[in-house]
């Protein structure tokens, strides 16, 4: 018995010591090596590439997970699995949740409808559109994704914008940016935006935070996302769309201020046009076409002072005037389709559309783009 106790004690001591050693070695090796695990992906190899960047409110129903590891996000995208062929004219779409296709199945997003138009360039290249839209309205978030997207040799960028993406205070207001402070700082530095957007506090992550233990949530999400690749490939479902979609707000408040701005004009530095200019510099020589996206125009209570939940009329009108002037001054191609779609084609917010509304938008853009391709080239 004594012999047994002795054996047991020494056994547990050895287990504890070895376990602790392995734990610390594994954790700190992970922290020091800074393994770019996001680049490892089952998508585009075993599973089909995703049609849009990963984002989900209900992972178990949408077979999708919101991950903020940019490497993993792009590695899962169909863009990463489609080497550009000489016969392809590649167009990237960036923008907010309306471009991403919130409450729309993957095959009914703006990009999906645009691809159905089967456009060709004058030199007979097939125009293929890719969805790099991502929820939350922020121009800087769009530019961050554009920066990554440019590595995939686009020929053109379509940037769908709306006033809500422009306020300076909204530029860093995106979980994607908050979770990628290093990348954001580098981008702000590279585009010389320091004076317009204060760089986020350089988050000096501790060694412990970078260890295997510290990264456990991110790793678990990444792993879960990889495994969901099977059901994505099998179902092509990447978003749980409720049977009854909640309806947008039609009756509006009488509030006429917009982010502390008062009528009749928005402050001269309020709108982040320098971010737009920086995007043009970043993409150059690849052209960018700005599209002021369609929005819901209410006829409910207080619709005489507001267009919708987001915008007082005076603020939106002033934004449009400034946008037109911005484009004209610089000779940029900008399409303003703010009132293209009838009110009933909007779903839960003033920018999310039904499949019908999205198809109409795609048709308009396709026609305009075809004209642009044949006149500009």
């Amino acid at each position, binding site marked *: 018995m004594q012999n*047994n106790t002795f054996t*047991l004690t020494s056994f*547990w001591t050895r287990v504890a010591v070895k376990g602790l050693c392995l734990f610390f070695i594994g954790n700190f090796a992970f922290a020091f090596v800074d393994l770019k695990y996001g680049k490892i992906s089952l998508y585009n190899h075993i599973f089909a590439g995703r049609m849009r960047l990963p984002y989900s409110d209900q992972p178990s*129903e949408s*077979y999708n997970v919101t991950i903020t590891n940019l490497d993993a996000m792009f590695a899962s995208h169909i863009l990463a699995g489609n080497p550009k062929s000489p016969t392809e004219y590649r167009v990237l779409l960036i923008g907010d949740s309306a471009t991403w296709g919130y409450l729309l199945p993957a095959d009914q997003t703006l990009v999906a409808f645009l691809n159905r138009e089967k456009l060709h360039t004058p030199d007979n290249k097939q125009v293929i559109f890719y969805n790099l839209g991502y929820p939350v309205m922020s121009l800087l978030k769009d530019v961050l994704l554009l920066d990554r997207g440019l590595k995939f040799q686009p020929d053109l960028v379509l940037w769908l914008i709306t006033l809500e993406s422009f306020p300076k205070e909204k530029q860093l207001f995106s979980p994607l940016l908050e979770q990628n402070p290093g990348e954001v700082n580098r981008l702000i530095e590279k585009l010389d935006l320091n004076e317009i957007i204060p760089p986020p506090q350089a988050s000096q992550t501790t060694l412990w935070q970078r260890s295997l233990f510290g990264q456990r949530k991110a790793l678990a999400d990444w792993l*879960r996302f990889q495994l969901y690749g*099977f059901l994505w*490939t*099998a*179902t092509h479902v990447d978003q749980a769309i409720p049977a009854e979609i909640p309806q947008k707000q039609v009756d509006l408040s009488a509030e006429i201020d917009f982010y502390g701005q008062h009528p009749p004009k928005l402050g001269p530095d309020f709108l982040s046009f320098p971010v737009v200019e920086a995007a043009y510099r970043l993409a150059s020589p690849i052209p960018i076409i700005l599209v002021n996206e369609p929005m819901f125009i209410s006829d409910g209570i207080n619709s005489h002072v507001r267009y919708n939940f987001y915008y007082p009329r005076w603020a939106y009108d002033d934004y449009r005037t400034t946008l037109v002037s911005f484009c004209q001054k610089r000779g940029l191609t900008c399409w303003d389709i703010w009132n293209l779609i009838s009110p009933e084609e909007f779903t839960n917010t003033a920018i999310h559309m039904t499949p019908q509304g999205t198809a109409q938008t795609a048709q308009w853009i396709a026609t305009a783009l075809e004209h642009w391709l044949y006149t500009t080239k």
Partner: protein
Amino acid sequence: MTISQVLLLIFLAFLCGRIKNLPIRNALLLPISLLIYYRFQTATPILFLDFWLPTLAILLTLLVWIASQSQIKIALKENAFPLILVLLTLLAISANRYLNICCLTPTRPPPLWTVVLTLLILLVPSTLLFSKISVRTRLGLLIFIAITIFIALKTPELSLFLSKFFRWLNQQDLRFSSSNDVLWLGISYILFRLLHLLLDWRAGRLPVANLEEIFNYIFFFPALVAGPIARFTQFRNEISNTPQPLDTIEGSRRILIGLFRKFVLADSLALLSLSSQNASQIHSPLFLWMALIAYSFRIYFDFSGYTDIALGSARLMGIRLPENFNAPYFKSSLIHFWNSWHITLADWFRSYVFNPLTRKLRASPALPNWLTIFIPQLSTMLLIGLWHGITPNFFLWGAWHGVGLFINNRWNALKKPSLLTRSESLQKYLGWTLTFGYVTLGWVWFLMPTFAMAVETFQKLFGIGI
């Protein structure tokens, strides 16, 4: 169970295993198991239900023990200490309403006076009634009550009725009633153990036991949620064994295997598995088969993982619980599969349904031999199916296996021994393929909530109607 619940369970098992004095450890096991039982209940939308349901299970166990005693007064006197321990634990948990100690119960317990009143209303008249009727009648009455509870909980319509009834008692809105409201953790295993005691006591196969032994057997916390269903005598022998030093090593090894199976393998496979939701979204037969096979392995790793954790935790205390799985997916016949899948449940049904029914049918000479095999096999499997829920699809799942077992039995009886020796390995391989395929296809009945969805899934699996 969540990982934190599992870790708590393992930690408590480890602590109990450190107590070398068996009488003290076994006396402590009783309140610990009851506390765990209350703690692990799921909060329900019905007021105080997560307190009343475990309380009801405790009272039922108490009544079962009282009913087994021929001299109730003497038995109560002799078992005063465990009886007081049970009642004090119950009242202490109830007093948490005023003490508000974190996490003892999922929601706030009801007022203490209602608990005392309920105990008095249920225990005193029952004990008085029991003293007037024979032990056999008491046990029969309790068997009826236990089966009624089983049926009520497993039938969606009756569960809905119960939800409405409990809501009405609490003056809650009846419109929000749902059959999922009555969540009674571990009740299946508790009832199986109680029925085992009642049936064996009634048949005179089991000696009477003391209250502490009975409570420790019924509420033994490592096996509370997912079994296994040990036999009482087996458990009593184990709990009176002194833990050996190497039990800790073996227990820890088993727990690690269980944690890996449940929280790594099963939870990962859950992300690939067939479900009632994705079955209608998958249109390719190949993907559907892959998802179905993933489900087969998921359910195995999930259940066997929990069993490993239960067996390992018990082993930390030197208690060996019976095995529940023995590599079922490697078996080359359905009969062998059912001898190695949820073994303790299958044994339970074999003892209390299959064997008595077979004996009864064999006694009647009018029945052909094949029928004396078919009827017990089908009935047993139907009951195992209905144990998961009294719905058409669980019935069909049971029937699927009942018919499969019968065919397997007939094949074994008819096949020529020369055939077996000539191509043994080929037969084994074919047998494995058939068994695995049959069991895996059977999960479609188990998974799909309606007959129509199950049929549609079968059609898609074979490329029909795509």
